[in-house]
């Protein structure tokens, strides 16, 4: 196995920085390559892209699921967008979602995932396995189940949190601090992905570099900053991008707070659900979807910028 001669694009860089330099050595050829891609593309095209674009088109109408506008929807052009952009609840939802993403994904899952991966690096096998299993359980269990687990844990009268704080009945957590609750919940739910990713990333840092740094007398913090982080930079960026996109549109917190109380935790997925299903306003929710798509696109572009900016600097 000659890994030392690997010159192919580094992991995660391939997508972030452009097509790989090596040519098509396998001899797939353009046409066969397209043939390989065809099944996936067909499925995606028919069952994702087509309905998605249709939804965006609905955003330009006043279509509702029931009522007169269901029978004969009219194209109202940009009215839904105008309504969204002048609706304070829409801005509130965006603001809450950004806080949610920043707190639980960008900071929470990233930091905790990294911290756990780093701490477990040198732990005993049994400890490592147990920890990984617990963290992964939070990610694997279905959403209805974990929602119930957290509702039970945060219950005002008998929930485990209040029992531990020796206050029953204590604070009604989901009502008093809804955003905090869903942020902590999402950290619990999603850290697994980051932890596994950083685990793999850390194992790819050459041990010789770490040895050198340690011999030179750097503290852990310095070692992290100067040796580890540059190596895993691209892992970190891909990870952050993915979990940002996923967290931004995550619906599960709705099962805990239903966007409440009084809209105080109405992240965008809850907002769309409330307008589409409870309000029946498909036109408006279609418009919101497009706006959310554009915002996500913006975030993705920011990441691309950061990724390419750093390309020249690393080894």
């Amino acid at each position, binding site marked *: *196995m*000659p*890994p030392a001669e690997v010159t192919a694009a580094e*992991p*995660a860089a391939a*997508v972030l920085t452009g*097509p*790989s330099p090596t040519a098509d050595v*396998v001899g797939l050829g*353009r046409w066969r*390559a*397209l043939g390989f*891609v065809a*099944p*996936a593309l067909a*499925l*995606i095209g*028919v*069952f*994702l*892209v*087509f309905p*998605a674009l*249709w*939804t965006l088109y609905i955003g330009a109408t006043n279509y509702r699921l029931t009522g007169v506008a269901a029978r004969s929807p009219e194209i109202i052009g940009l009215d839904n967008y105008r309504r969204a952009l002048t609706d304070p609840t829409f801005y509130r939802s965006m603001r809450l979602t950004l806080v949610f993403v920043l707190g639980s994904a960008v900071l929470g899952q990233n930091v905790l995932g990294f911290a*756990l991966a780093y701490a477990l690096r*040198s*732990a005993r096998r049994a400890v490592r396995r147990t*920890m990984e299993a*617990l963290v992964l*359980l*939070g*990610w*694997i*269990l*279905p959403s209805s*189940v974990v929602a*119930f*687990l*957290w509702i*039970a*844990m945060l219950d005002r009268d008998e929930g*485990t949190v209040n*029992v531990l704080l020796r206050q029953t009945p204590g604070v009604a957590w989901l009502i008093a601090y809804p955003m905090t609750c869903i942020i902590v919940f999402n950290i*619990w739910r999603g850290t697994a992905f980051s932890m596994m990713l950083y685990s*793999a990333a850390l194992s790819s840092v050459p041990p010789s570099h770490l040895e050198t740094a340690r011999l030179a007398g750097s*503290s*852990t913090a310095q070692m992290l900053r100067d040796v580890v982080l540059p190596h895993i930079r691209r892992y970190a960026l891909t990870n952050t991008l*993915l979990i940002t*996109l*996923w967290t931004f549109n995550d*619906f599960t917190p709705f099962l805990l707070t239903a966007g409440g109380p009084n809209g105080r935790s109405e992240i965008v997925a809850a907002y*769309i659900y409330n307008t*589409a*299903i409870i309000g029946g306003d498909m036109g408006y*929710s279609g418009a919101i*979807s497009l706006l959310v*798509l554009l915002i*996500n696109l913006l975030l*993705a572009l920011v990441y691309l910028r950061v990724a390419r900016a750093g390309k020249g600097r690393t080894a």
Partner: protein
Amino acid sequence: MSVARAVVNRVLTYVVIGVGTAFFALPLLWLLSAPFDATPTYGVRPPSRVTLANFGEIGRNPYAVSSLVNSVLLALGTMIVVVVAAALAAYALSRVHVPGRDALLYALLLLSSVITGTAAMVPIFLLIFQLNLIDSRAGVVLVLSGGLLPAAIFLLKDFIDTIPRSYEESARVFGASPLRILRDIVVPVARPGMATIAVWTIVQVWGSFLTPFILLRDPGKQPAAVLVRTFYTEGGSPNLALISTFSLLYSIPVVLMYLFAWSRYGFRFHGGIKS
């Protein structure tokens, strides 16, 4: 590094692991205590009366077992579709520079993350209706696959990019067809990545509520994710005994599957050949 520093590091490590363990284990406790309690509440406590009657109650529910079977069928079906299609596509996209590849992948990834079942509910329903696939599990599998493929391809392509091409080159020299190369050389090496995608797909499908709910009519075809939402009492409040018990049963298959995949393949998102 000085001894003090080493000790501090050690302590910090243990604290992180300790707090982490507590944090992740705590919410799970309810799932272990409530199903065995005759009258469970939201609290975690040793059951006042330990009982297995709740499980019997679930067994008497006409749809409980069939819903778990349906969940398995949907999950496996989607997993097969996604892994095969994603493997083919990721391999081709990794090895061949198709113009616009990156832009397309990003666009699809964005689309699949943002446009979820709720917003696209009406178009998906009408589309499936036109294809005459309403009330069929196949329809659900197709819709779920379409939604999961972009991320699957994204992740798998990343993984395959890290696999050196030397073996494929050699095989090509010996005249093997690309499909053969894919099957005999790349797939065995890419197994951890594919296992990850498989597990991820199964987890997503296992918890999927809205799509099966909208597209399926026959209660015998409903998966467990839909059934678990029906456990309300006559009066409309959640039946904690049934919910906790069924949640436990509902969770077990995914956990088993994950353990199986993990022990056989490891759970790596990046890697390929390790040094």
